[in-house]
Every structure is written in C-alpha cells, then in structure tokens.
C-alpha cells in the first residue's frame, strides 16, 4: 500500500496547513501511475497531485478540508 501525501508547498511554514481543493477521482476508483488525482493549495500556491503508482485509491480527506502539509491524503493499494 502506498501513501499519497499532501505536498510540501511552503518553505517558510513546512508544517503549515493547506486545503484539498479538488479530487479528480472517486473513492475506490482505479488510478494509473502518473494520473492526476488532486489539486491542493497552500496560501495562494497551488499544486497538482499525481498518483505515484497504479492501483485502487482510497481518499482520506474530503474536498475543502484543511490539511497539514506532509500528511496522508490518500492511499493506493
């Protein structure tokens, strides 16, 4: 099982919080390696999250949830 982490977007505030802005896949969906799975934001910096491996994805947070950078947002098995 692979953990997908909220990316580190802020150098000044590495433990700071951001938001899970958009999920592009549903909970339980099969994703391909390299597929776009989410868009996140810290402050006004946005980032795309790509699936590191293929598999079935389980979403651990909801859209608009406030999330700490580096924490787990999904798992792929």
């Amino acid at each position: 099982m692979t953990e997908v982490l909220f990316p580190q977007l802020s150098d000044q505030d590495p433990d700071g919080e951001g938001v899970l802005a958009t999920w592009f896949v549903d909970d339980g969906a099969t994703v391909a390696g390299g597929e776009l799975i989410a868009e996140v934001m810290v402050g006004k910096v946005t980032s795309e999250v790509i699936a590191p491996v293929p598999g079935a994805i389980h979403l651990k947070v909801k859209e608009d949830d406030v999330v700490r950078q580096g924490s787990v947002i999904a798992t792929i098995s």
Partner: protein
Amino acid sequence: MTTTETPATTATAPTTSARRLTTAKAMVEGIAQEMERDPSVFYLGEDVGAYGGIFSSTTGLLERFGPERVMDTPISESAFLGLAIGAAVEGMRPIAELMFVDFFGVCMDQLYNHMAKIHYESGGNVRVPMVVTTAVGGGYSDGAQHSQCLWGTFAHLPGMKIVVPSTPYDAKGLMTAAIRDDNPVVYMFHKGVMGLPWMAKNPRATGPVPEEPYEVPIGRAAVVREGGDATVVTVSLSVHHALDVAEELAADGIDLEVVDLRSLKPLDRETVLASVAKTGRLLVVDEDYLSYGLSGEIAATVAETDPGLLRSPMRRVAVPDVPIPYAHPLEYAVLPTRDRIREAVHHLVRA
C-alpha cells in the same frame, strides 16, 4: 447528479472511462493539443506566460511550448489584440487574452471595428482566424469593474462568434472548435466555472473530459436536463445554479428543462423554441445586465415566432441595471442566485 445531453445537439458524449478535469485544465488541454497540431497557433496576453494566466487559462503552456509561442505582453490591449488581427490576416491562428472582459473599453475598436468587420468589408477576401479569450463573471467581491459578463454587448455587434462554456467537456471542445474556426471567436470563460482552488466553486466545475482532441460545434445549445414543466434557458455559471435548483424542485414535483446555450453567436434558436413549445413556460437566467441583452433576445425569439407557445408570461432573472456592488450582501442581491431562480420558477409555474 449527471448532465444528460441530447445527442442530436451535441458532439459525442464523453467516454465512460474519461478522466476528470477542472474547466481550467480542460481549456488548457484544448489549447495545448491545437498548439501541438498546428504550429501557427500561439497565445499572447498579460501574465499568460510564467504566471499561467491569472485565472489559470494557460497553466503549463509556457513550459511546454516556450516563449516564442506563449507570450507575455505589455499592458497594451489595443496593440496586442491588433497584433493578433494582423497575424491572423497573414494566416496564423493567434489566441489573444483580454484578461477581464471589463477591460474591453480600452481596446474595443480593434475588436468590433477591425477584427469583426474585416471579413465583411473585404467581401470575404480576407479572413481573421483568431480567438479572443476573456474572463467574465462575479460573485467574489471584485467590484463593478472586474465582475461583469458583457456577452450581450459583444453578441450585439456583428462579425464575431461568441462561445461561453459552462463545463469542462464544453470548455475543451469549444476551444478546439474556436481555434479551428476561420472566423474571429470570442471565448468567454466564467471565473466561477474554472474550478480554481482559491475561489468558491460548484462541483460541476470538475467533470469528464476525453483525452483525445474533439470539437463541440459552435452555434449549438445543449439540453442538459430534460423536463416537462418549464424551460430554463441560460449560460455559463448560471447553468449550474439552474441545475441545482432543478434537482431541489424535482422533489417538489416541478420538472425543469435546462438549456445551456453554450454559444451566443450564432444563437441556437431552434433548440430554445423546441423546448418552449414542449413546456410552455420560459425563464431566462442571465448574469449579464437585464436590459437590452441576451434575455431580451430570447424573449424576442419566442415572441416573433409564436407568442402562443407560452402559457404564461416569461420571466427573466438577470443582473439589474446597476454597477455590480462590492459588499457581499449587495453583490449577492443582484446576481442571479439560486434563491432568485427558485422564486422565479415558482412564479412561473403558478401563473
């Protein structure tokens, strides 16, 4: 909640395995695939390079295609929109971005007196195959000079096609069609449908988008929800609000048909008339100003074809003829919100 599209009026519906994109990303993908296919396509505007467009209209394009094809311009709308016209006249396919449609005042001459008229004035001898992209719409307190839609103003003037996508699927398909069209096409994208992380968004701002290039025909509306009790004709972000209201009211036994115009020029009057003929009741929801615009045009379409189609007077929900206010409660009093739509539907079905 899914959007259903009548096959006769749309391009092929998305494949079942289509991945999802935001409207912004779908728009960018449309541009990128055309830039890949046709070396004469290039994009210019303010902050479209490294910034990726202030509403994410060009994110990633500079990295992929380089500064020769994705160009930041000075704040010189007349000059760079005019430059796009000259390049188009010479056979290139420029995409020029007017950052906010509200800025049209500083460059409208190049658009409506030149871009839109050259083909006609030259008796068809000179073509202007360019796209003007521009951000429209309010709802986030950007005030009177940064929140307008103005598609009525543009559609009123001859010689420009006008497209207004509401979904990611249409955003990519209409962009592809716009770039390939040999005429000037104004592509108006509402900031609220782009799916931007930093602005409140409707869940429909993300949706299925085929990976391969495809076109959505310009000039064809889509019936995005079938229903028998009343027709809601609308465009852009208001499509989503209308669908939200339709879902709610279905529980009350009111069955709305929602028509997403998608193009304002050419205008698909046939789809509007067919729907009104079916339901007998018409509501137009338009985030542009009420008077002398799109909603009046839809009314005229019905009135001059057959006013007898209507069982009751039509209704319009639009921005009243006031500058869009800054303060949140004031702004939301003038926008065509779900509350206003719901109230109008109730009046319509009770009349």
